Every structure is written in C-alpha cells, then in structure tokens.
C-alpha cells in the first residue's frame, strides 16, 4: 500500500499530522512539536511502517521564506507540489525554525522526513536520544548552529564551534564572513 496512506492511517487518528507534502518522491510529514516522541515511537513500532533507522537530524531557518516577497514572484509551472503554501494572508508569520528528522526503514528501504516547527520564542524540542543514540551529535550541532535546545539530551554543548562562541552561525541573519569572533585559549600555567 502506498506509503502516504500507511502513514496517514498510522498517525491520522491521533491527529498528529499537521501537513503532509510530497516532493519528487520524498514524503515529508509535519507533526506538532509537543508530541514528537509519541510520533517517533509510533513510526518505529507499528509493524507496517517500521522506521528503525534515524539517518539524520538537522535544523532549517525559514526566515527568508516566511517574509512576504517584495517583488511579485512569477509562478513557474514546475511540477511537484508547492511546498510552502504562500503565506498570502497577513496573519501571524509561521514559526521561524524547523527541525527535520530523516527516517529510514531498513527492510523496505523507504525514507520519510518528519518535520517539526519551532517557535523563535520557545526553542525547546524533546531530544530523541532515548530512542536513537544516533541523534546525539546532530542535535548538538542543531543547537550549535541554530540555538534550538533539545530537552533530555545528555550533554547539550556546542559541537563544531568553540564553547565561548556566542552567536548561532547558520541562522539567516548571521553574516557569512562572521562577526570577527576570536578564540583565546587560557592556559593554567
């Protein structure tokens, strides 16, 4: 049975599915942030889905996408569904950050993207460390690069930048050349 229906059938009843999009054969499901752990347990344990391998966890900053386009964007007829429904109405902007989980079912070789939107005011997501240990460093890197905190992570520290680094470099409003931070090692002798 088509993966989309199976996921719908598995996650639908508890209305976990906020949005489901399909792009070039990659199915991506958006789920509410507060019950990400239940969704992951469901996706892993239901027999006909069986996503038992966490391929990657990373953050996305949708600052530029949410901004209403200044110049009218001409619509191309590119096939594939429109991913972001253009926020035409002037309502509150959708949450800025996004955490994407890439899941993989080893037996059926199927891949699924699970997305969670994170408000700028409340940058807290439950950590998946208890389900898959593979999320240890990717979550630390998402924290290092975007500032998204992961509740329950064993040692949430900066991974790639040095600890005293203050900014979150991969955010869209951070300049490419950086703001001139320097690292000074203090030696005890």
């Amino acid at each position: 049975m088509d993966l989309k229906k199976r996921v719908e059938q598995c996650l639908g009843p508890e209305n976990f599915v906020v949005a489901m999009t399909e792009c070039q054969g990659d199915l991506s499901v958006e789920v509410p942030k507060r019950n990400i752990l239940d969704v992951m347990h469901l996706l892993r344990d239901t027999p006909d889905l069986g996503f038992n391998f966490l391929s990657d966890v990373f953050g996305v900053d949708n600052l530029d996408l949410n901004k209403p386009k200044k110049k009218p964007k001409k619509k191309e007829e590119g096939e594939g569904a429109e991913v972001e429904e253009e926020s035409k109405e002037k309502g509150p902007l959708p949450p800025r950050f996004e955490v994407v989980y890439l899941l993989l079912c080893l037996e059926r070789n199927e891949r699924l993207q699970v997305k969670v939107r994170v408000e700028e005011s409340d940058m807290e997501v439950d950590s998946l460390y208890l389900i898959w240990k593979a999320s240890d460093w990717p979550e630390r890197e998402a924290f290092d690069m975007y500032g998204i905190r992961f509740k329950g992570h064993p040692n949430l520290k900066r991974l790639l930048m040095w600890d005293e680094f203050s900014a979150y470099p991969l955010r869209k409003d951070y300049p490419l050349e950086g703001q001139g931070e320097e690292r000074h090692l203090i030696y005890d002798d």
Partner: protein
Amino acid sequence: MGKIQAYNGGGWIATKLEWLINWGRKRSPWPLPFGTACCGIEMMCALAAGYDMARFGAERPSFSPRQADVLIQAGTINLKLAPVFKKIYDQMAEPKCVISMGACASSGGVFRTYATLQGIDKLVPVDIYIPGCPPRPEALLQALLMFIEKTEKSQPITHKKYSDLLVGT
C-alpha cells in the same frame, strides 16, 4: 636583482663554519607535518614512495614541535584551531621555517566564512607560500628546495639578519 649589501662578513673560519652549519641544516629538514585538510593528503603523497621527500633528508616526520625544523601547514586552519597552531609554532626550536601549503593555509582559500582563519600569516611569520588547491607534491618538493636555498644564505655565526641581506634571486 636586488641591492646587495657590501659583504663584510666574518673571516675565513667564520664563513667556512657557517657553510658547514648551513649544510647540516639544509640537508636534514625534519618536517612537522601539520596536515589538516586535503593538502595533508597531498603532503602524504609527497612523503610516500611516489615523490619521496626522504631524498632531501626529510625522512623523519616528527610530530613533537621540539624536534622539528620545518612546520608544513597543509590545509585549512579554522578559528578553533588557530590558538593551538600558534602554541605549536611557539614550541618549536629556533632555526624554524614555516611552509604554508595550499591556498587555504595561505589565504583561507575558497572558504571565505565565519569559521576559517584567512591565512596563517595572521598568526605566524611564514617563509614559503605554495599556491594551489591542493598543490601537487612536486610543488611541495620545490618549497623544500627553496627552504634549502634560504638556509644556504642564512648566517648563523655572523648574525646578519637575513632580511637586510637583500638578495633578489
């Protein structure tokens, strides 16, 4: 040709002793292969059988800065590694030479980003720059030859600063 200062170095013995010391230093440049990125792989090929830096006496790569003469910085230095790199340079014993191999070490290369040090000459005085990304092993061997030329002209006994003996070769 640059302006050559009138040669008023030491007597016969000093120059002959200098020649001997320079000969010893130029014939056994023990490298400290500080290979971080892709240039590190090309340096490894230069050390291996194909191009064999051991022919010039650079047989024994010593990773302890105390025993190294030539610091070959192959690859990108990012801002997290910069103080470590500076500390290692300071620990090296005196007649030391720094070869900055590749565009990343010399000027930050293609990575004009928040995390990359734009060239190691912001930290340490560099003697020889090698262009290329990554430079071919022959380029590294040519850098070693330039190191040999430079050591031949240095004057450990009569202590003339190398820079004021402006030799434009």
